[in-house]
């Protein structure tokens, strides 16, 4: 039985991610207010909201990259620092310099660094795991290629392979679908589903409202505050979206239309997860 069918967190201490009353501020100007969030084991949580809603900020705050002005964050019941090896991270693709002199294999191996002690080099076993992860995203033939010589979709796959190499239980992914081709998008979502079936928990920042209800079984609608959080079918309503996006109707009507079309075809988002 898949864990995500459990609608509410079963136990307070073993939830992969628990955020309570989190407020984050950049030089006194708050960007996230009183965020409460519990991600149950085996869930794929989509973090959705307009530009500047604080989606990436939330991920950075969870990892302790930004200080919390108030509130607390627990990862598997512990502070993030004590649970680092259980968390995998996929940053935004633009956050790194792709001219950096490393090849795809080097990047994937970095996923193993958290498990190596200080001053330890990756072992043969680490390299084999990295190769297997490259194979999984169909990038093994490109292992020796310098990363600027890869297409946007290929670069994103390398990042995903690196996250797989981390062998974590909770994955934080910042816009993994931005700037990728359709084939890569399908490949990424397959891997996310596979991770979910292995009982892993995923928190995915996403900006495409038309695909969000198909990809995620829980959605956090964010606009500096939590507009709504819960199971996709409960959260992804016209009213909630309007609250989050402040009546930018062109987007909303488009989403409403595509949803209505899907409903008419009898293709509800739930059917995808079964």
């Amino acid at each position, binding site marked *: 039985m898949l864990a995500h069918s459990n609608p509410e967190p079963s136990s307070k201490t073993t939830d992969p991610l628990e955020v309570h009353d989190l407020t984050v501020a950049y030089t006194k100007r708050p960007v996230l207010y009183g965020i409460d969030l519990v991600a149950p084991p085996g869930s794929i949580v989509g973090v959705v909201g307009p530009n500047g809603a604080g989606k990436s900020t939330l991920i950075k705050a969870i990892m302790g990259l930004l200080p919390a002005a108030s509130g607390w964050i627990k990862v598997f019941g512990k502070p993030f620092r004590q649970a680092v090896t259980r968390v995998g991270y996929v940053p935004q693709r633009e956050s790194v310099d792709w001219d950096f*002199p490393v090849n795809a294999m080097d990047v994937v191996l970095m996923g193993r660094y958290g498990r190596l002690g200080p001053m330890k080099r990756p072992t043969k076993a680490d390299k084999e795991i990295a190769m297997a992860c490259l194979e999984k995203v169909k990038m093994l033939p490109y292992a020796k290629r310098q990363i600027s010589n890869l297409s946007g979709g290929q670069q994103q796959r390398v990042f995903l392979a690196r996250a797989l190499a981390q062998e974590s239980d909770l994955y934080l992914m910042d816009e993994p679908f931005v700037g990728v081709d359709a084939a890569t998008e399908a490949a990424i979502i397959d891997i996310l589903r596979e991770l979910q079936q292995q009982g892993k928990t995923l928190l995915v920042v996403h900006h495409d409202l038309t695909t969000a209800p198909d990809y995620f079984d829980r959605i956090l609608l964010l606009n500096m505050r939590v507009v709504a959080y819960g199971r996709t079918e409960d959260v992804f309503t016209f009213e909630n979206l309007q609250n989050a996006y402040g009546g930018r109707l062109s987007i909303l009507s488009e989403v409403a239309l595509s949803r209505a079309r899907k409903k008419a075809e009898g293709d509800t988002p739930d059917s995808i997860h079964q």
Partner: protein
Amino acid sequence: MQRERLIPEFDWNAVFVQPWSEYASNSFWIVLMGFLVSGTCGLVGCFVILRRMALVGDAISHSLLPGITLAFLLTHSRDTLPMMIGAVAAGVVTVALIEAIRYSSRIKADAAIGIVFSSLFAVGVILISVFADKVDLDAECVLYGELGFIPLQEIAYFGETEIGPEPVIRMGIIALIAIGLLVAFYKEMLVTSFDAGLAASLGISPTRYQYGLTLFLSIVIVSSFESVGVVLVIAMIIFPGATALLLTDRLSNALWISTAFSACYAVFGFHLATWLNASIAGGMTVIAGIVFGIIWMVSPGQGLIIQFRSRHSSNEEALEPINPSL
């Protein structure tokens, strides 16, 4: 001949043979020191370049002037330790001031660097001229360095055995420490340079390694300035790594190649300076510039010639196809 030649005549014997026969010992120490300085600067420089800290390095080297002048005024000694402390303190103050200006105002990093290093450097210039009678520091030597004096320096002994001029031995130790740190922390330096966010999420603190690198960079600059001067030390930091990165796509290779370039600067810079009877640090930097120019043209991966050819050739096989669907 009616008038003096503008450029000294090139005499093969005087430029290449004599230094290694009559003055072999002196030449050896000079070239070795040149190599140790540019090799160590080059290794640290690879990371400095990749982290876009090159201008910070320049700022640190200029701020050494007030640092060592103050250290001298306070201790009245030219011993290594007070000089080292003064210079590292100046480096730390420089970086702290740059960061403070960046974080507390709208001024961006490049302008902040310009403000901090030029004002600190000016303080140093003024200190030297005001206390000219008390400061027994050769401003010329601090600014431009003098590798030619290396063989005249005090000789270091190991027990009873003479091992070599003290500055060379000191630089050799710094070089060994640099290699040791590089071997020990290569993976940490790699991941914090490439993806600070991932590093932090792995429990490898990017700020700690940033401070570590800055501190070690200050130490390397302090150890190098006697030889190449505070103005040209930045050349030794940037040139080996920048030139190596034109030739290779992998950081580990770039480190080796940068060391080979450093050796080349030391040898040919020395001979160029011997020919022109000029500053050896100047000679090394000119050679570094020439080598960079050549590699920039002919590099098989990124060279101007290859770029020009691929842009103007109709032969499409020259371009390796990338299949985006894979």
